[in-house]
Structure formats: C-alpha cells, structure tokens
C-alpha cells in the first residue's frame, strides 16, 4: 500500500529490500495490481523500483554501499512482526530490525526516517493517547505493542529527523472492500468463522460482543493519510492514523453483521467477556472459535481514545479521508464472502435453515444460559 501510494504520486524511485519468500516478479505484480486498482497511471516499474533481497539483520550494514550507490535519501521502515506474543520473533522483527535500519539511516545520513508503528504502542492507557513518544506502560494488551513502543524509542533516539506513523487496525478498502494486508484483526475473526463455523449450520451460537468500539481503519484511508503525513508533517512528528470515534462500529455491530447476515442461528447468546461464556456447554469447534475470537478481541476490552491533532489538521486542509462505519465494514464483509467459496457454499446449502430471524439472548454471566 505504501509503496504503491508513493509510486502513484509519481515523484519517487523506490528501493525495496524484501524477505526471501518474495521474489521481484511477485512484488512487481502486486505493485502493478495495486496501482491499477487505484486507477493510477502504471509507470514502468522496472525503471522506478529496485528490488533487493532483505539480508539477515546482522548483514544489513552491508546494504550501505548499495543504498548509497542507488541514491537512497530517506527510509520508510514498514517491515515488522505482528505475532502478538512470540517474544523472540518480536525482538528480532520489530526491535532488532528497526535498530539495524536506523543505523543504516545514520550511515547514509538520510534526511528522514519514517517508521510504521501501531496506534496501540501506548499499551493500555487512561484518557486520550497523545501524539508523542510514550513512557513505559503499566500494562500492554500484547507483547507486540510493547515491542513497537521500544522500536519507536530507537527511531526517536537515532538522531535522524523522523516521522512515526501509528495506524489502528487496517481493514479493506472502503469503496470495494478489497484487502491487500495480512490476515489479522477482523479478517482473522471472519476467517475463523469461515473455517470453524461454516461447515454445518449451527442453530445456537455464542459470541463475545461487547458494545465497545473497535479501532479500525480502511486501507485507502491508511494510504491517503500516510501520503499526506509523509508530504506535510514537520520533522519529528508522531501521527495517529485512526478513524473518528463517533462513527466507529462496536464489536457488537461487527458480530451482528456477520451473525445476522451469514450464520443466522436460531438463538444467539451475546456475552460481554470470555470469562462469562460457559465453554463447557459448547461443542469443541465452537469452544475454540469463541476462545480464539475472544483473545483477538481483547484489545477492544478497553476504551482507546487517540488524539488526532495532525489528522484533523490534514483533513481541514483537504485530505480526503473515509472513516470506518458499519456500512463500510459491510462492504468489506461482502467482499470477504464473495472471495470465500466455503462461506458462499454454506449460505447456499443452508438457505432453508438460515431463513430465521435469530433470537438474541443477552448474557452478562454464564448463569444466564439455560
């Protein structure tokens, strides 16, 4: 998304070090696809893009001469590890890799170092989360957020002018639902429903669906927001790239959308917390579904209020930015369904069973389940 956006602007030449499981052809094909989807003029990508294998972290200093020869002027560091708790991978993928690229930037005297962090790098926080570097947190939702906070510190201490971009959870394009990212956030929830809940019709479904907002961000808003910040924000900015709170759907809205449109059980038990669900009463695949979606929604168990001074300023100065709404999530969900043979088969096969209006049972505790 970032590379395609920069290419679409027409001014930049890119050097892309990519991990070994990618090859130049696949990277160029993805870029071309994204540029076409953006309706952008398709440049001669071989002229504008140089693709290199990303070496192991300890060999990254050896990129210095190549980058110098290629005239690298600034670094946008968007690689990382999104494993929530795998400490070793997080240390390597978020902390050590960032350190290596910051060092590379120092060697090259780049004019700026841009780092893609996360909106949740504050850890759990009371009150509005500021657009500045965070102190250590008392509690983090995951080790991932902690590792990103550490990486931000390395960037800020690196002595180069920096831009730290903190997006919330990225979902598909607001216009057509297409999604080019890895399967996490609500895509993991939908995929779990695809794999575990769409083999047979389930007349009774249990779900954790608190009325707390999910901090989501459309990928087109991510792209336009990133590009605007990249062009306009002063050195040493920290930028919250997030949708407006007031339009943001809740976890409950999200499950309503899936369970009323796709699964359509006869009875739907809604819980506030994983701890309230009587797991022992559920069949095993539903147990696992509830537990896996529950931990995934942990991040929405607290309120996240992000200061958005930079984004507000950019919007006032003409940035087109689409906030997430329940309708725009429906667009993404419909795209997911149309791309999933399993869900489409489920919908068709169980048309008769699904011709019900689910009866919703609100459960505050496990005792509420008969």
């Amino acid at each position, binding site marked *: 998304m970032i590379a395609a956006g920069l290419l679409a602007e027409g001014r930049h030449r890119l050097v892309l070090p990519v991990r070994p499981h990618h090859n130049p052809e696949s990277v160029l094909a993805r870029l071309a696809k994204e540029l076409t989807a953006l309706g952008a003029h398709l440049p001669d990508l071989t002229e504008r893009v140089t693709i290199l294998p990303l070496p192991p972290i300890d060999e990254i200093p050896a990129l210095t001469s190549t980058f110098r020869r290629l005239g690298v002027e600034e670094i946008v560091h968007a690689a990382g590890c999104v494993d929530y708790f795998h400490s070793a991978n997080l240390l390597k993928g978020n902390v050590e890799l960032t350190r290596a690229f910051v060092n590379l930037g120092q060697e090259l005297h780049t004019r700026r170092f841009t780092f893609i962090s996360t909106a949740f790098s504050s850890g759990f926080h009371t009150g509005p989360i500021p657009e500045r570097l965070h102190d250590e947190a008392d509690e983090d939702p995951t080790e991932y957020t902690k590792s990103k906070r550490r990486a931000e510190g390395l960037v800020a201490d690196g002595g180069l002018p920096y831009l730290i971009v903190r997006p919330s959870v990225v979902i598909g394009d607001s216009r057509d639902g297409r999604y080019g990212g890895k399967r996490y956030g609500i895509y993991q929830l939908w995929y779990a429903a695809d794999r575990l809940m769409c*083999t047979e019709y389930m007349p009774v479904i249990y779900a954790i669906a608190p009325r707390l907002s999910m901090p989501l961000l459309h990928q087109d808003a991510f792209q336009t927001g990133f590009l605007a910040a990249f062009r306009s924000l002063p050195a040493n900015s920290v930028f919250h790239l997030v949708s407006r709170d007031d339009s943001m759907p809740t976890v409950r809205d999200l499950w309503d959308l899936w369970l009323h449109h796709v699964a359509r059980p006869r009875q739907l038990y809604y819980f506030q917390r994983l701890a309230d669900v009587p797991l022992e009463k559920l069949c095993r695949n539903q147990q696992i579904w509830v537990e896996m979606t529950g931990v995934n929604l942990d991040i929405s168990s607290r309120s996240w209020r992000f200061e958005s001074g930079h984004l507000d300023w950019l919007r006032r100065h003409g940035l087109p930015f689409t906030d997430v709404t329940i309708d725009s999530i429906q667009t993404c969900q419909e795209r997911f369904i149309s791309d999933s043979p399993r869900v489409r088969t489920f919908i068709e096969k169980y048309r008769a069973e699904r011709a019900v209006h689910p009866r919703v049972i609100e459960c505050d505790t496990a005792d509420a389940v008969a």
Partner: protein
Amino acid sequence: MDLPDRDELLMWRILGKLEALALRKYESVLPLLATPAKKAVVDQLLETAPDDAALAASPLGQPIQELLQAADGADSTATLIVQGMVLERLGQIIYKALSAQQTVSDATRALAASGWDACAAVIELATQQIKQQVGEGERLFDAFCQAADGVLKRLDGLGDGVDSLFGQRFGLTFSEVLGEFTAELLPACVALGISRRKLVCHLAGVFMGL
C-alpha cells in the same frame, strides 16, 4: 464390513505417511519414543496401503506433502514438539473419530484402536521428555512457536480436502478436527506451564492468520 474400502485405504495411506515420518524421526533422534506399538501400527499401515497413487491424485496429495516437509525438522527438540506434542495429538483425534465410525470396516476400527493407544503412549513419554529437555512455561512457549508454527500453518491447507473426501464418509470435518485437536492441545500445554491466553492468541494467528 471386514476390509477397508477405497476411502479407508486413502486414510490409511495418509496416516501411514505421517506415522512413518514420526517413527523415522524418533528412531534417529529420540529412540525412546520409537515404541514397539508405534512400529507395529506403522508396519500395518504401510503393508495395507503401500502406494501413493490414490493420495497423489486426491485434493490432499499436495497439502499432505507440504505438511510432511514442514514436519521433517532435524533436531530432537523440533521432533519432540512437532511429532510428540502436536502431530501425535492430531493422529489421536483421527483415530478416535475412525474408531467411533460404524460405517468403516472392522480392520479400520481395530487399527484406529491400536493407533490411538500407540499415540497415547508416545504422548506420555514425549511430555516427560519435554519437561526434561526443553523446560516449561515461557521457555517451552518460545520453543513451541519456533518448532511448530510451520506445521500448524500447513494444517489449514488440509481443510477443503478433508471436508470433501472425509466429511460425508467418516463424519470427519476439518472444523471438528481442528476443534478437537486444539481442545486437546491447549490443556496439555497449560499443564506444562504455557499461558493459555498467549497460546490461544498464538494459535489463532497461526491457524487463522498470517
């Protein structure tokens, strides 16, 4: 029904390939897990379903091949975790489902019973060995992620093939296998000191995500 039919033989072949790899790994790096019962099950599977033709022509040919490659780690810790902790449990789930099926042959039900017993014995031995060799809690969690992710990610590739080939015939759907498997694996890992929340979160990412 006394003899396995074509569908059953396909299942025997899949189990045979997985079990034979496990046995080979045990014999090379963890001989105490290469139990006589496991050897007997492998012999029976390979004698009854000796060739790959039907498997290779099925939707499971490629995903099983990828799973076997991912499970072919070299060292004893990887073998302990991938085979002794993960794939033995997956085997148990399949054997359990087969042994409860009234529509399969006596031979398959008998194999399933002995296969389940052999898996149970190896799991017990592997668990003791994991405690001694790898440790518990965070250390084990890190080792588990390191060793098992490649295999767990490949399981997703079996989904459509399992449903289309075995869903109707054996009442064995991928969602049920995954549910049963995870439900067995979680408490076993928690008993070894791994945080349930961390593990569930990690498994969600591995099975459903990245």
